[in-house]
């Protein structure tokens, strides 16, 4: 007596009609559809890999790996890496150094190397370029000749700086990004209070992002409410107004801000006219922190309004009605029934605005002046002006970590499934 459709094999597995185990059969039949699904996403996957994931990985790698010295000074680099950083520099190190300096000068890479070492100890740039110019004529004993040339070569600090630069894989940039110094002996030292620029900038960026987020929430929530409860026709008009900042070009928008906010601008004229302030003490609303806050709130407002709006649209009107019929006043009904239902939208909007503003660059650069600059402006500075890509990468890596931590915190506290983006 055997079942016609499913029998059991010797190992107790269910068998299909042709005798193969049912699980194998199922997997085979699934494979085709899985391949098709994979084929459908493949172009996007390749695009994302090539344009997003790989560059980010490379950037993060740049933050811990800088081979400028090791590549251009091949003879001395291994000796420097092997040196313990505290004993007396040896003659072999000096000899390799001189050979490298000759080669680097010939290859015209000495400038790069000098800058790289100079970042570890200022003043070494000229030491390198000057010494390299004379290196071709140097003879043994090299250490003595070097010291003879410039007595800085006798200083063990110089050699330590070279050792740090010679180590390609290094936490030095991440240390620098949080205002610490990674020494040749492998220790970290915090910079003095007055030299801590990065930490202050990180705090300022987080503070500004939080302020922008709350400003967007307070300004956006009532607008979202209005949008969700107005008749469709007027809601559409209002929606267009909300989206208008998205549709105007950056230059037009910036010009408009300048026209509005500058000290001879529309807002200040109004303030003077209604007597809030005197003509000689107009507010400075642009090219400072205030400018950054106003402009970022303006541009990020839609990111707060839209998720809240879409959540509000989905709240059945009967919920508030039910609350009122149960005896709740308007405000109780709002705070105990309506508001909790909008929290997923607030969470999504808040997270979106916060994460966007933490990496915001253009707006602070245009209207932030000196003290309205955020961490991303500093990253851009290191990428474009000082050409210290590794430091820029380290700063960027920390920014990424902050965002991921926030995301994780949000998931722990509110729950990502609770988030509604539309």
């Amino acid at each position: 007596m055997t079942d016609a459709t499913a029998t059991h094999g010797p190992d107790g597995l269910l068998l299909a009609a042709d005798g193969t185990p049912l699980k194998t059969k199922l997997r085979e039949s699934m494979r085709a559809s899985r391949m098709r699904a994979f084929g459908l996403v493949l172009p996007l996957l390749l695009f994302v890999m090539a344009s997003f994931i790989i560059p980010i990985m490379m950037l993060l790698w740049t933050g811990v790996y800088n081979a400028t010295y090791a590549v251009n000074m091949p003879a001395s680099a291994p000796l420097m890496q092997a040196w313990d950083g505290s004993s007396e520099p040896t003659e072999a190190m000096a000899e390799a150094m001189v050979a490298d300096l000759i080669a680097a000068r010939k290859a015209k890479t000495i400038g790069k190397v000098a800058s790289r070492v100079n970042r570890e100890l200022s003043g070494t740039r000229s030491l390198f370029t000057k010494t390299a110019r004379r290196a071709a004529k140097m003879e043994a004993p090299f250490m003595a000749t070097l010291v003879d040339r410039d007595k800085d070569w006798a200083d063990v600090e110089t050699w330590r700086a070279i050792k740090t630069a010679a180590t390609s894989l290094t936490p030095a940039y991440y240390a620098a990004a949080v205002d610490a110094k990674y020494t040749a002996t492998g220790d970290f030292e915090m910079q003095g209070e007055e030299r801590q620029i990065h930490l202050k900038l990180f705090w300022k960026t987080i503070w500004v992002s939080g302020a922008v987020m709350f400003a967007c929430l307070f300004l956006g929530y009532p607008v979202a409410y209005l949008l969700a409860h107005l008749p469709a026709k007027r809601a559409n008009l209002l929606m267009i107004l909300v989206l208008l900042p998205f549709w105007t070009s950056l230059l037009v928008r910036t010009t408009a801000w300048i026209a509005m906010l500058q000290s001879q601008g529309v807002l200040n004229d109004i303030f003077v006219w209604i007597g809030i302030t005197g003509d000689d003490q107009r507010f400075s609303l642009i090219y400072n922190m205030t400018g950054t806050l106003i402009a970022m709130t303006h541009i990020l407002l839609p990111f707060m309004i839209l998720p809240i709006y879409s959540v509000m649209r989905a709240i059945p009107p009967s919920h508030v009605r039910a609350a009122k019929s149960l005896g709740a006043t308007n405000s109780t009904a709002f705070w105990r029934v309506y508001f909790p239902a909008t929290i997923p939208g607030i969470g999504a909007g808040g997270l979106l605005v916060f994460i966007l503003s933490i990496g915001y660059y253009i707006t602070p650069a245009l209207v932030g002046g000196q003290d309205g600059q955020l961490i991303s402006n500093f990253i851009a500075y290191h990428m474009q002006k000082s050409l210290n890509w590794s430091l820029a990468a380290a700063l960027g890596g920390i920014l990424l970590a902050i965002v991921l931590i926030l995301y994780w915190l949000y998931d722990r506290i509110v729950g990502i499934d609770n988030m509604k983006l539309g």
Partner: protein
Amino acid sequence: MAETGTERPFVHFDGVQKSYDGETLVVKNLNLEIAPGEFVTMLGPSGSGKTTCLMMLAGFEAATHGEIFLKGQPINNVPPHKRNIGMVFQNYALFPHMTVAENLAFPLQVRKMRRRDVKEKVARALGMVQMDEFGNRKPAQLSGGQQQRVALARALVFEPELVLMDEPLGALDKQLREHMQYEIKHIHEQLGVTVVYVTHDQSEALTMSDRIAVFDDGVIQQLAPPSILYEQPDNAFVAQFIGENNRLPGKVTAIENGVARVALDQGGEVCALAINCGDVGGRTVLSIRPERVQVNSASLQNRLDGNVLELIYLGDHIRCRMQVAGRDDFIVKVPNSPEHAMLREGETCTVGWNTEDCRALDLAAHAM
């Protein structure tokens, strides 16, 4: 319950009109008195203004004209939260972020009741709808029927004297709906609250109500207990809307002692109670319930020839579609008992009825 007619009405709609757009009246001149403890159902097709009436009573819509009284007090200017009216919504409107117990506690908390009393009342209300074990669940973790019970308990937990229900069973399947109908009915009897219930399911209305207000086009077509509504409909709309109904169009030729002689369009003349048929010479529609039609019975005053078109065996009775007076949608329910003749398809026979079972009504809702 319904016999408390001598008392002051508990709810009183006095000439109430409602228009949303200022152009059409959704509710036209509504006059309705509901006695304390009564179960009144508003029944009518979609868009007839039932929900609108309920919303005006609950305070979510303002009456355009007229006044609504609750216990003799005009309530047009009383905000919804001060009306103390329990309400069950069609989609239950349970608060999704609160547990079942918190949902039930809500109306008590906003009334600033002491915590101990709240707990006790919530427990009692949950017991009443047999949901004791579900207090800690969120509404999303309940089935439709369970959510419905919670909504019911929440509308009752603060002991309102009036409870409104807007198609509370509309989303449930047939069996559960019937079960819940009895449960609501029992709770109503047990607590003695006044209930205004909205549905467009006529069997639900017939099962539960003390009185039914049949709505159409913003007007109450008839307000009566279920049996009267079924057996003595005032007009063609009610006759057609409640239960099954055979309609025969014709012309009134004479009226005598409340009995009209009607000449049918396809020939033949029959007698019917003159209910709503206008004067002699006017057009009318006769209305006869299928179970009041008798086949091949010689003793009846009104008889017509019929031709059997279709027979459907339904166990306790046989449903027979016939051609009578030129119409082939004439239904007769023949009881499945030995003294009744067995019919066959294609057979010709006579159908007849007593004059008191046939009502001559207006033409208005006669669609054919």
